[in-house]
């Protein structure tokens, strides 16, 4: 091992941020804006805003395989190939599976982005607040442990995060889906408006169809240009039309002059001083040179994405706690959650043949949760929300054995009718036995031990999936949708790409890893603010909550630093 020991002074910062995705970017922005000298450590390569979005302006015909996948890609990406992420247009943005293996005791689909910006470049951008019931449910139902915070604690930070990130959406006045600080909403199309109206009538205001709230700009915002309706977000947006580290938090942090960004820096452990009971810094393995460095700081923000944050903790302070920093509660690595989905319904809508869409809207519709709230009671806990949309497909009503001009003409026009489809995203409960552990017998490209996954959905989720299909069918049918078919495309944990839990927040160091300000109980100057901290999953997309929790924790960290408490 090569230790760069004479560089202590130049490797000392006020704060270290591990990871540069949604949470890491927010940590870097908040801490630098408050005057701290920060180093942001990213394990992968740099991706420069706009310049490195190499496929952003390519048309489909410029891809040799027209955006599809080759046998070589299937061979090279044993995990990514399991779902849509593997395709020719975005290949550069996903981790090379073979360099970073992991162990599946049970199947777990782990889609990772190891580069500056992390998955903020490829995220779905759906942005929702958790509601007050989400924070109370564990305590009320006796599930896992209670959240140490309530909606009121995070609400101002949601506002703060939304104002900076730029979230478009409608204010709907729903308790189940609190309103936020929104930019003007994107428009529902004519079919969605009609279904919304019919649903509201039938359910007498108890179920709602709204525009999917998303981190896409509908107005210029700072140096960013509003969405141009190309719907190619996942290739990187040359307009900065959606929130990412590159478009939003990184430029803000850079502007302060206080940020150092170091790509190719795999944090292998947090350095812990047992006398002060605090972290002193981190150890970094340079992914290109394999040299080892140490960086020192007063505080460490762990934002490496849920499971990798936990991996870093598991590798840290093992001389004191064999299972790692934060493991004293026995909960580190436990309570893995995701959102289970891919079940819903779809059908055909008649009567709108004189209407079409112009532009490619980068969001769809959202139907907030209605199960197990107010007087509704099901034979499972929690609930689900739906995402989907209506659109007009292309000519598929072609008679058998048609070829020639007739076939070409039929395929060149839209279908007579519109189609609508909705897919539910369901809450997964935190189960102690759903866990990740370190597999020291398997190593990655750099010789580091990998995670082993032992996670599954259980009866509660399986019961919910039946409602997820049947409720979708009912709602579409009562709204006049024809030929409604339900579907369950099957779900493997991880496919939601919403990994949560493994270092949960709580009220008691004996049963949780983090306190109410995301501090590791066993090292108060270490903050974990990404998906790892989640005490329960809610059913809404989680990224906005990470933004809010990160900003809140950064604010607290700096105030504690000023009081010399850290």
């Amino acid at each position: 091992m090569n230790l760069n020991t004479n560089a202590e002074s130049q490797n000392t910062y006020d704060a270290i941020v591990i990871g540069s995705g949604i949470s890491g970017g927010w940590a870097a922005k908040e801490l630098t804006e408050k005057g701290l000298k920060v180093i942001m450590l990213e394990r992968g390569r740099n991706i420069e805003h706009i310049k490195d979005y190499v496929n952003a302006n390519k048309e489909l015909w410029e891809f040799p395989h027209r955006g599809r996948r080759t046998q070589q890609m299937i061979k090279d990406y044993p995990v990514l190939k399991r779902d849509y992420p593997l395709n020719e247009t975005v290949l550069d943005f996903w981790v090379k599976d073979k360099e970073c293996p992991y162990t599946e005791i049970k199947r777990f689909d782990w889609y990772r982005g190891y580069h500056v910006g992390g998955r903020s470049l490829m995220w779905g951008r759906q942005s929702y607040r958790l509601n007050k019931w989400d924070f109370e449910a564990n305590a009320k139902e006796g599930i896992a442990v209670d959240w140490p915070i309530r909606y009121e604690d995070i609400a101002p930070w949601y506002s703060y995060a939304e104002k900076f990130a730029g979230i478009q959406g409608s204010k709907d006045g729903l308790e189940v889906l609190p309103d936020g600080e929104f930019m003007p909403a994107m428009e529902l199309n004519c079919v969605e408006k009609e279904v919304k109206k019919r649903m509201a009538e039938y359910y007498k205001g108890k179920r709602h169809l709204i525009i999917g709230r998303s981190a896409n700009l509908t107005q210029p915002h700072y140096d960013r240009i509003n969405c141009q309706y190309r719907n190619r977000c996942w290739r990187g947006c040359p307009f900065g039309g959606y929130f990412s580290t590159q478009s939003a938090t990184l430029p803000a942090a850079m502007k302060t002059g206080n940020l150092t960004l170091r790509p190719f820096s795999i944090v292998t452990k947090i350095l812990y001083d047992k006398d002060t009971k605090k972290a002193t810094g981190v150890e970094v393995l340079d992914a290109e040179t394999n040299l080892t460095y140490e960086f020192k700081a007063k505080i460490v923000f762990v934002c490496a994405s849920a499971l990798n944050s936990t991996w870093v903790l598991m590798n840290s302070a093992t001389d004191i706690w064999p299972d790692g920093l934060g493991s004293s509660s026995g909960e580190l690595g436990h309570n893995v959650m995701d959102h289970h989905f891919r079940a819903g319904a779809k059908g055909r809508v008649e009567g709108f043949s004189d209407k079409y869409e112009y532009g490619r809207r980068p969001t769809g519709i959202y139907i907030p949760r209605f199960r197990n709230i107010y007087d509704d009671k099901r034979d499972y806990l929690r609930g689900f929300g739906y995402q989907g949309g209506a659109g007009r497909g292309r000519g598929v009503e072609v008679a058998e054995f048609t070829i020639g001009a007739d076939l070409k003409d039929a395929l060149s026009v839209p279908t007579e009718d519109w189609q609508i489809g909705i897919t539910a995203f369901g809450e997964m409960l935190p189960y102690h036995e759903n866990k990740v552990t370190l597999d020291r017998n398997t190593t990655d490209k750099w010789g580091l031990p990998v995670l082993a996954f032992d996670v599954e959905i259980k009866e509660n989720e399986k019961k919910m999936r039946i409602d997820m299909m049947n409720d979708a069918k009912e709602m579409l049918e009562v709204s006049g949708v024809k030929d409604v078919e339900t579907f369950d495309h099957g779900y493997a944990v991880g496919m939601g790409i919403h990994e949560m839990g493994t270092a949960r927040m709580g009220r008691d160091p004996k049963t949780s890893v983090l306190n109410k300000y995301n501090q590791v109980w066993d090292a108060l100057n270490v903050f974990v603010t990404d998906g790892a901290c989640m005490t329960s999953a809610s059913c809404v997309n989680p990224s906005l909550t990470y933004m809010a929790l990160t900003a809140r924790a950064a604010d607290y960290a700096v105030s504690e630093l000023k009081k010399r408490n850290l």
Partner: protein
Amino acid sequence: MDRRDLLKSIALVTGAAVIGGDFFLTGCKQAGKSEAGFTPDNIRLLDEVGETILPTTQTPGAKAAQVGEFMKVYVTDCYTQRQQNAFMEGLISLQDSCEKMHGKAFTDCSETERKEFLISLEKEAKAFNQKRDEEDKPTREAHEQRNSTLPWKDQTEFEGSPSHYYTMIKQLTLLGFFTSQTGMTETLRHVPVPGKYDGEFPYAKGDKAWAE
């Protein structure tokens, strides 16, 4: 319309899921040869077959979209070895069958003869694929049964027998054409940067569909 719509409509038109690049769950398939054995003559033939399926009308057809060249790339890179073999052997069968039906090479046939021949091939393909599905069924079920007894990491993907070669050619003609520059911009309408969204955009019967 997006690519999923395109794949769906190709599947509906050809009666089979689009071959190549499926969401394989487990196992590593043997990738195809780097040179699948395409010759300039093959490519010309495929352009002509493609042109019969999607001809030049008021807008350019499959030949202008170079679907033959596209098929070479796609079959070589995206098909499994088994699918590749079926495709390449199919090119020989296609020529033989045409000789049998019309007593001449496909490229020497009139437009009417070509259409007549391809419609007969499509009927043959339909029967072939149905029989294949029936024959694969017990093997597939046995495979799934075996998988269910194995630990997750030892499970393998079932690879069914390839579709009829004409199904492949027709699918690739549609895929190649509607993702080509001419297909997307001349036969369909394409706006790279729409700049706005209108969810009640007027539509008159016969107006072209949007590409991607």
